């Protein structure tokens, strides 16, 4: 079974530039998550999709971050414009269903450095 795919693995940009991250979840997984992991901290949920609908985006900085999951499969997370404090690893995860008791399956992450 193929895992959660993310790209790019690494990205370096200057502040005020834009960046986009892509995620392809495990086939058949209805729920997709984007987490932000700042160095030394635990992952923080940014947004959670159930199929192509948003379940929770309460911690997404909507003035600069946006995310979409067209057709309920792949997802893209965009940051525009980036700030220094956005430097982090962006983790995508998926699970079978939002209500189930199963675990999350994570991709390897996209490490963003903002200079």
């Amino acid at each position, binding site marked *: 079974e193929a895992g959660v795919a993310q790209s790019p693995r690494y990205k370096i940009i200057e502040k005020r530039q834009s960046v986009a991250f892509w995620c392809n979840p495990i086939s058949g997984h209805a729920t997709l998550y984007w987490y932000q992991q700042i160095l*030394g901290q635990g*992952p923080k949920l940014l947004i959670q999709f159930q199929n192509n609908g948003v379940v929770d985006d309460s911690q997404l900085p909507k003035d600069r971050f946006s995310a979409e999951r067209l057709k309920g499969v792949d997802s893209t997370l965009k940051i525009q414009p980036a700030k220094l404090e956005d430097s982090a690893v962006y983790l995508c995860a998926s699970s079978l269903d*939002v209500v189930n008791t199963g675990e*999350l399956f994570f991709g390897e992450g996209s490490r963003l450095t903002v200079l």
Partner: protein
Amino acid sequence: AQSVAQPEDQVNVAEGNPLTVKCTYSVSGNPYLFWYVQYPNRGLQFLLKYITGDNLVKGSYGFEAEFNKSQTSFHLKKPSALVSDSALYFCAVRDKATGGFKTIFGAGTRLFVKA
């Protein structure tokens, strides 16, 4: 609101000795509890979970965890540590939030196993 705490930033143990990584939680309803491990430059990997039933749950790589409702704890344990167990460990809790279940992660505990 749900929360999870990992009181130790780092745990050091000698190879062959038992290890414990601590976790306490706070939820409004019945908790679903998880442990994940993260190796350098990798995403999180699921280790084990408690949903209901036996308070002692067993997981991958010889790890186990004990659910204690009265102490609201879910400590991760292993009878005999290996050098290869050295990694970052995250406790997570899931509670019903608006629109579905949200998984919240602790700040993580770094485990060092010395040969």
